[in-house]
């Protein structure tokens, strides 16, 4: 099991979410974060005051995957979050020791698969197909 943490552009979040769902990763946790990377600082002007925005708004997505899902997950993020400009974000992968589902007490891989995972994945694939046809 791995904890995959990715930091992406807020404006790419809808695409990233759809790609993750299509890959079968349906259990995700989001946070709004701000941070500093290689991007240029944004300058804002209010009358005579110039304000430099040193930190950029990002979205952090955390998810724990069983081993077969790790590579598809990384591929899904790469394909959906990349714009090619500086500031696209990072993916961090760390090992996880133990997972417990609070509702049932199930542990590890049994605790990881969301009960409606298949349903969500099928819907995401169908939506993508319809989008492509239109």
């Amino acid at each position, binding site marked *: 099991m791995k904890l995959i943490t990715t930091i992406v552009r807020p404006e790419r979040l809808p695409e990233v979410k759809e790609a993750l769902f299509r890959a079968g990763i349906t259990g995700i946790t989001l946070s709004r974060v701000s941070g500093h990377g290689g991007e240029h600082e944004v300058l*804002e*002007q*209010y*009358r*005579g*005051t110039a*304000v*430099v925005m040193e930190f950029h708004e990002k979205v952090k997505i955390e998810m724990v995957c069983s081993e077969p899902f790790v590579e598809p997950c990384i591929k899904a993020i790469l394909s959906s979050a990349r714009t090619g400009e500086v500031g696209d974000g990072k993916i961090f992968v760390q090992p996880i020791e133990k997972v417990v589902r609070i509702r049932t007490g199930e542990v590890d891989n049994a605790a990881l698969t969301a009960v409606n995972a298949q349903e969500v994945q099928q819907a995401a694939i169908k939506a993508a197909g319809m989008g492509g046809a239109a």
Partner: protein
Amino acid sequence: MTQGAAVSAGDTAWVLTSSALVLLMTVGLAFFYGGLVRTKNALNTMMMSVVALGVIGVQWVLVGYSIAFGHGNAWFGGFAWLGFRGVGIEPDPAYAATIPLQAHAMFQGMFAIITPALISGAIVERMRFRAYVAFLVLWATLIYDPLAHWVWGAGGWLQQRGALDFAGGTVVHISAGVSALVAAWMLGARKDFRRVPLAPHSVPLVLLGAGLLWFGWFGFNAGSALAANGLAALAFVNTNNGAAAALVTWALLDLIRTGKITAVGAATGLVVGLVGITPAAGYVSTLAALAIGALSACVSYTAIQIRSRTRLDDALDVFSCHGLAGTAGALLTGVFASKLINPAGADGLLAGNAAQVAVQLLAVTATVAFAAIGTAVILKLVQATLGARAGVRTEMTGLDLSEHGEEAYFGGGALGGNVVVQEIPVE
């Protein structure tokens, strides 16, 4: 009802409507200033305008109107009309022959309310509220009321010199702007001035406030005709011209300097244009009004750029926007005024009467001197008795909590866990 025959229904309706419009300006000012400060001081800043609706509303009826518009001497209106005694529904031809004196009194009262509130923009985020309220009442009584008498009161000395001030360029904007400069200087800069970014917390509120100011300013300027007539229409049109031309000019200056047109700039520009056209609205042509709006914007824009490089913490640039644009408007009135436009006015420089510029300059100088010295004395008095400056810690946590015990945007956030209900004993 022989007296009643002199009252014009149309004139009275317009002046009463204009009074309500000017009242809305003070609310607009609360939004305009409130949006420009930080979240932690939003309520305190808005209350600095709102409280004037109360205290100056009362002060005006008790003493203000008498000092400003009583038939006293050239300098002072006297105490004959204290508590509106003798201010009835019959017209007073010295001011307006066709509207009840009470309508005139209420219209002018709205001016008396917004003028000291304008000053608050210079001293936001650092003044004790009770000290501010004391300052407000003293300033209205000792500065605004006599000044209004000089320019508009029966027999006022500046009026007799022929100074033109249609709706309050000197009385309202120069006096407030200069007093703001003195107050900002005496009170000192905010503790974190030039250390942290002091950016507006809500630009949409700024735009809302600027819109309300523009709307209300039609009452301010066109209502100053004190009748529903051609002069009111002229002032109405010129008011719009001044605001529109200044907005466009400000946007272009923004574009040239930073490459972008800003929303705060558009809001500031339109207000500056309204300030500039205020003294001129009833005396100049349509094209002159456009020129006055554009020139006022240039003056204020330049002044703000210079001010922001100094240590002077006139937080919301009241001096640049009201003091200097008001001065530009007052002097340009002396340039563009024409008797072809308003026979009751005067000819200005372009109509061959250079002396009018000198008269305007006299009015500006007298206003600046009186407002500056008066503000310094009043603020010294308030500092010595009540203490004007908020403490360092309250300044850091914000004046909304320390002065009002409220927050502009209450809520414990997503977790909502840091708020509990205080026990209230059940009877």
